[in-house]
């Protein structure tokens, strides 16, 4: 990683802002399709990125390994790889490991070593830790990313995977050969950072376990959110909005057990004046959530698409300061920063709408 520090501060050493393009595609029936549509969709929004970061998350892409955590890891140097693999060996059963297949692309350069591991926690270690499997795995991921120099786990969920790099997103999709993967859900991100961090880990989606977030915006609540979530064992090493949003969702959904609707009422809480017009029961519930998790309110512009196993959630900030369009066609649901990015892959949607600020769009697989 040091090579990137010679001229510019590394991602995580100071806070960068960025504008972006996001897109999401979801099949409610669980039918799997390749990453090609996601590439096509994001390519329409080329000018919303500046070639300094792009990435994809696909769900349902590893059915043959669906019971194992799929770790995608960047290594800067062989020593990082050795140290990390030693750590993985101590904490997990390694079911399979390989380089992630890539194909050279003239716009994608300076790639790190990119490896994939299918793992499951070592039973004895897991029992001794007194943690559940997900918490154990999350802590190991946070440990690697914080303490093992030159190693960075950028994907750690089951039956899903993140693919990201420095470059335009459509080039990143070609680089990772996403035509070869099939998933029922894809999200994609093109980044427009206001400087040149040039580190692959800083590209998006940002993911922890099966949560992945693509985000467009710059949140003004960042440090309030960060300082709060860091109380609960998270370490915001990248200093990006997407990272802190992912951790907050993980905390609220996985650790506190809120459903996604309730998560939205925390991070994009309705205004008090709106809450005041609701039923007594709803007032109690909304007030409880806003008060209890006050420091997790996100202010400032954002549109996010959260991927999770079995679904997607799209959410805008309370004032809708970033564009976000949704559309449906049969079993397909489309979400994007711009309508054009939907129409390029589905010219005749059944329904197109602009979700209101703070109102989540949640789609899940048909039972």
């Amino acid at each position, binding site marked *: 990683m040091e090579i990137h520090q010679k001229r510019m501060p590394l991602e995580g050493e100071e806070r960068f802002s960025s504008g972006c393009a996001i897109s999401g595609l979801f099949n409610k029936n669980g039918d799997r399709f390749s990453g090609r549509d996601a590439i096509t969709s994001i390519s329409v929004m080329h000018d919303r990125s500046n070639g300094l970061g792009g990435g994809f998350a696909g769900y349902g892409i590893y059915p043959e390994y669906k019971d194992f955590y799929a770790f995608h890891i960047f290594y800067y140097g062989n020593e990082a790889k050795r140290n990390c693999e030693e750590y993985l060996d101590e904490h997990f059963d390694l079911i399979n490991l390989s380089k992630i297949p890539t194909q050279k692309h003239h716009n994608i350069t300076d790639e790190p070593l990119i490896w994939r591991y299918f793992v499951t926690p070592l039973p004895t270690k897991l029992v001794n830790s007194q943690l559940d499997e997900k918490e154990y795995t999350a802590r190991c991921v946070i440990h690697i990313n914080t303490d093992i120099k030159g190693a960075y786990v950028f994907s750690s969920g089951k039956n899903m995977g993140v693919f990201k790099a420095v470059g335009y997103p459509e080039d990143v999709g070609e680089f990772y050969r996403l035509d070869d993967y099939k998933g029922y859900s894809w999200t994609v991100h093109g980044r427009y950072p206001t400087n040149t961090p040039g580190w692959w880990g800083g590209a998006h989606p940002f993911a922890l376990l099966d949560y992945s977030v693509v985000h467009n*915006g710059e949140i*003004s609540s960042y440090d309030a959110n960060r300082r*709060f979530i860091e109380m609960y064992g998270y370490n915001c090493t990248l200093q990006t909005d997407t990272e802190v949003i992912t951790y907050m969702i993980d905390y609220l959904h996985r650790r506190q057990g809120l459903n996604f609707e309730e998560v939205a009422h925390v991070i994009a809480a309705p205004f008090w004046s709106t809450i005041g017009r609701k039923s007594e029961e709803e007032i109690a519930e909304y007030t409880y959530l806003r008060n209890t*998790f006050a420091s997790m309110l996100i*202010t400032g512009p954002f549109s996010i698409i959260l991927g999770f196993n079995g679904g997607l959630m799209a959410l805008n900030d309370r004032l809708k300061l970033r564009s976000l369009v949704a559309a449906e066609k049969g079993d397909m649901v489309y979400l994007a920063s711009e309508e054009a990015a939907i129409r390029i892959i589905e010219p005749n949607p059944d329904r197109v709408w602009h979700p209101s600020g703070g109102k989540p769009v949640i789609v899940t697989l048909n039972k």
Partner: protein
Amino acid sequence: MGINYLYPDFEVHRDKDKCINCRVCERQCANEVHAFDKELNRMIADDSKCVNCHRCVSLCPTHALKIVKTDHHFKENANWKGEVIQDIYRQAESGGVLLASMGTPKDYPVYWDKMLINASQVTNPSIDPLREPMETRTFLGQKSTKIKRDDQGRLITTTTPQLSLNIPIMFSAMSYGSISYNAHKSLAMAAQELGIFYNTGEGGLHEDFYQYGKNTIVQVASGRFGVHPGYLNAGAAIEIKMGQGAKPGIGGHLPGSKIGEDISKTRMIPEHADAISPAPHHDIYSIEDLRQLVFALKEATAYTKPIIVKVAAVHNISAIASGIARSGADIIAIDGFRGGTGAAPARTRDNVGIPIELALASVDSRLRQEGIRNNVSLVVGGSIRSSADVIKAIALGADAIYVATSALLALGCHLCRTCQNGKCNWGIATQKPELVKRLNPEVGSQRLVNLITAWEHEIKEMMGGMGINSIEALRGNRLMLRGIGLNETELQILGISHAGQ
């Protein structure tokens, strides 16, 4: 003329051309500075009695008066300054402790003035508070650490008792006794109108003010003056006063001369007896004792009121706060060393304690390091002078702030710092009926409402500038602050970067 003669600090300048001998100044001055000299047929003044409270200046119909700092001085000496020499003369004469009031006037660093606030440009938009909702509602109290659901899966929304504030500003403790009935009434009325809280201080609650209970914090201090079950249950919250920023480590002293019938009844002590509150609570010699008092008060109020523990900012404040956060207290109030007082030993006031900015930053950081910041709310006071100070305090990590000196200024106080004499010409820090009636509670409360409303507008304007539309997103948001002219250690304690970084 004795050898202890001290030249007056101020000179009363009267423009003889403007003076019409109306004698307003004479009637208004409780210190008896002004007099009419019949033989000379003009007003004269005894400068030595002047405390520079501006009452006469403000009311002179022809603007004939001004108070000027004397240019009389000792021979220049950077070490032995005039005031140092004078203090020694005073103590050589009296053998006593030097008394003072209000916050320290010494030239200590004011860190509020060395922090700058951020604003949005290009990458995210600022928000216009005149066109968009801008929220300042704040809840004070413990937050649940784990959500619970009923058997139908619905959230259980009951919480420990919380204080709800329309804006995170409260009037901090000033006892009935140290300030007047009318001053208390002004604060109570304003708190009610603003949807915030005022604080009884340690002097009990006058029976006339029970009607403001929903906006009242009742205090329990080491003297336990005026504490009884009705009092504890009258307020919205109970504050245990362990210390005060202006005089950490010592108790309070209300001279018998101020304890007339009403105050005696409210404090439940004999008339004209000095009210001396001990330095410590004699039932609290350690943290486990504090926990017992916290729960004794909760028991006495059936767990319906949040308990605030107020401490002075002292050197190991973060460890102390961490202890309090685990004592069952719902709210910690920290009072910085520039905070005001109705009377305190000058040496204590000017030398004991630490600035609130550093105390706040270090307590907030410590509570977060220990993962217990959400167990308590944090209220800070000790010289919050403007809406900008409020913004900075909240960005450093405070949930709400306490103001007292600013509130008194709104009521007419001119910071002459002679509250201990009980002759406040503005009707605030006095119990003399003819002075008290000068403060009209209707006018006083309106001025307090005006002040806080004005601050609220400014807070919303600056929040909007930062692209923040709810106050909780500012809380602890230290990226919104930058230091200016601070050294590494100061920046590190405040947890902020330097301007330009």
